[in-house]
């Protein structure tokens, strides 16, 4: 069985935009496409307060988190100074315009991270 699995084509991701890949368990995976058609994948969680990076503005080789504007590098998931932190990176392979992710990483990376809570459930146990 192949270790790589196809999730979408490059054309499915807007230029300087992103798409999400859902998993049965754990946070989603964010796919990003740069101006020169490179594709990167990060765990869809900012190292700061777990904001969904897939919803940020993509520029150069980075994405700005939509919650507090941390800038996260797409290659290594590291926050740009002066902020500190790192988001897990997924390997990406492009084959004939198809985006492939690593099966093993999809099954394991960040899988146990709890979802962020908001709303009434933060007041009482839920």
């Amino acid at each position, binding site marked *: 069985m192949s270790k790589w699995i196809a999730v979408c084509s490059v054309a*499915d991701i807007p230029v300087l935009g992103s798409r999400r890949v859902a*998993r*049965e368990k754990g946070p989603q995976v964010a796919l990003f496409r740069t101006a020169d058609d490179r594709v990167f994948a990060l765990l869809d969680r900012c190292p700061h307060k777990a904001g969904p990076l897939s*919803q940020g503005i993509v520029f*150069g080789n980075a994405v700005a988190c939509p919650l507090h504007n941390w800038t996260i590098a797409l290659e290594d998931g590291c926050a740009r100074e002066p902020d500190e932190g790192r988001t897990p990176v997924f390997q990406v392979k492009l084959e004939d315009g198809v985006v492939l992710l690593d099966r093993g990483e999809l099954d394991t990376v960040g899988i146990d991270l709890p979802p962020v809570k908001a709303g009434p*459930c933060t007041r009482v146990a839920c």
Partner: protein
Amino acid sequence: MKKMKLVMIGNGMAGVRTLEELLKIAPELYDITVFGAEPHPNYNRILLSPVLAGEQTLDEIVLNPLSWYEEHGITLHLGKAVTTIDRIRRQVVAADGTEAGYDRLLIATGSTPFLLPVPGKDLAGVIAYRDIADTNAMIEAATKYRHAVVIGGGLLGLEAANGLMLRGMQVTVVHLGDWLMERQLDDQAGELLRKSLQERGLRFRMGASTEALIGDRDGRVMAVRFKGGEEIPADLVVMAAGIRPNTALAESAGLHCQRGIVVTDTLQTVTDPRVYAVGECAAHRGIAYGLVAPLFEQGKVCANHLAQFGIGRYLGSQTSTKLKVTGIDLFSAGDFMGGAGTEEIVMSDPFAGVYKKLVIKDDRLVGACLYGDTVDGSWYFKLLREGRQIGDIRDKLMFGESNIGDVGHQGHNKAAAMADSDEVCGCNGVTKGAVCKAIKEKGLFTLEEVRKHTKASASCGSCTGLVEQLLMFTAGGDYSSAPKKKAICGCTEHSHQEVRDAIFDRHLTRMADVFEQLDWKSPDGCATCRPALNYYLISSWPKEAVDDPQSRFINERSHANIQKDGTYSVIPRMWGGETTADELRRIADAVDKYKIPTVKVTGGQRIDLLGVRKEDLVDVWRDIGMPSGHAYAKALRTVKTCVGSEWCRMGTQDSTQMGKDLERAMWRMYAPHKVKFAVSGCPRNCAEAGIKDVGIIGVDSGWEMYVAGNGGIKTEVAHFLVKLRTAEEVMEYTGAFMQLYRKEGWYLERTVHYVSRVGLDHVKRRILDDAEGRQALWAELQFALDGEPDPWFEFAKAQVDVRQFEPVATVPAMVPDAAPAIVQA
């Protein structure tokens, strides 16, 4: 390619800052060699006074440790003064014979103290106050001797005197002028300062002229003699009678010098374009600056040129002054003396030790001199730099900007009085101690740097004044000579105004054209400039420029407000705050169906559904069947109304209908920032129209229109603009004001800040005095809004990327020994 050689003479703040700027933009262009006459790496000369006063140590004021030079491959010659520049062979020679050839030469030799040409000036114990060696000499003298005399009651002299006094010496300041710091203060403030310093124990000899310094048998100074023969004891004499640009070396190399090495707007010497000069040694348009902020501006431009970009120009700076004597607050800027053709506003309370003078000329603030209460110094300085007309705020000018409205830092407006643990920035939870620590440890000088490193003042900005004060007394006195124009972001040198003008004048309709024509430094901008450019393009060229969803913040891309857990909030439009049973029923059904956890009534008379999953947004919009409330956008949000004459026994006008009409006319209107209206039906003003971007208040004879109010970070009461008779007029004037703001406001500038920048008089000229112009503006807005889609329903027309709402794929967990099945959306 072989690297070019850059030699820098002088290892001080201006020069090294230039290198830092250069390394940022062209790290590989040069082999760099630095000669420094002092045996120290670059340190913060401004902080010598706190070192002398025992408040900081020498180690703490080093800006670039030796490792910094190593890291950047810079050859550093410390303790080697350059004695010769050979411009023909293009090399420099130091006193010890060390040679270095150059392709580009940067002279940053700073300044030298002016020594009074009096007999005895060469005696032991007579020193200037300029560098670490002088400071150490003073510290040492203070341990052995008792009497110190400081000649010169200027900034430097007083700081030296204060430091020596704190180290236990009895200090007399000898000053030729009639009052202290006459280049920075007027007579009244100077006198207050003298009294205050006298109370601390300093002695003064005002109007005294030094005739000679008398030595003892060992050749050490023992007394100072004044004209007239009187002598006072002196074991240490500090000459602080002024500084001169250090141009001896440049002159010997045949470079044109006149009160400094004469440089152009690109910091090149007028004599030899291979040779640059920055800092206190350089004379730009006849001025040799002695404060750090202008020198850093010079460094930035110079670096840009050395890097062969060649787009920056240094156009001179305005400067302000602050004395670094702990516990004494004074600030001055511009033409603080006043005189013919100027008017003065003065507030004087000698008992409390407070004195403020503002100098006004031709309806503009041209100078300020503050003693005792300097909290508004940075605001005055900003008004002065921008040269904005002040007629409309003249009556409030003296009371400053910060006395009303700013929230988020417990009402503090005097940074000095705060404890280290007090919060400065309520948004990001940054304490005073954290800000001061970062300024000291990271060598920060500008507001931008503090924002970047600490996040203080980086969110809502209401604490900017406090942070500026902290910079003043932590980093040194003169941080605040910010450039007149501020670049949008790191991607460009251009300001908001320049970019917006270029887009309009050159008829640019695509972002790529802006990047190309305005020399953007990054290929596709950043999260700061792209949304601004997108707004400028679509507001300048409606129906021509195409909106770019990827350059919009997520809320405007998904047409809902992102929440902390990644869910969204949905606020449907309720015209004028009125709703119906049908609408409420549909909302209630949607809340049940999509399990929306929170339903909240907003401050703008609407209903907020919080916690909607992104996947459900489109369905929720459809089920509710109400128009977008644009509560997520830089656009017209709510129009708050009271019930008005329809129901209210006090009501004089039908405010609800007026509000609905305004909302229906202007919804879908994107703007530089969010926009809120309110309409009240009588002066009791239940709709709180006094704190809205446009507030309309019905009176018996018509409507009063107020603009540029704000109820947020800065509580600001709206200005009365005009009294109108008919509802049609209210529509026209409101539309015209909005279009003016849309065309002239900078991105993310609320109307309160826009009107404060351009002045209410400007708005009145355009809206009230120019009927044709007003009607044209209103027509322009109607043209721009005509046919604009509702993004909750007309997806294609509003360019809503509908695929964003679902994951592009869902990967099932792996089943052992089975081929994975991918579900593609």
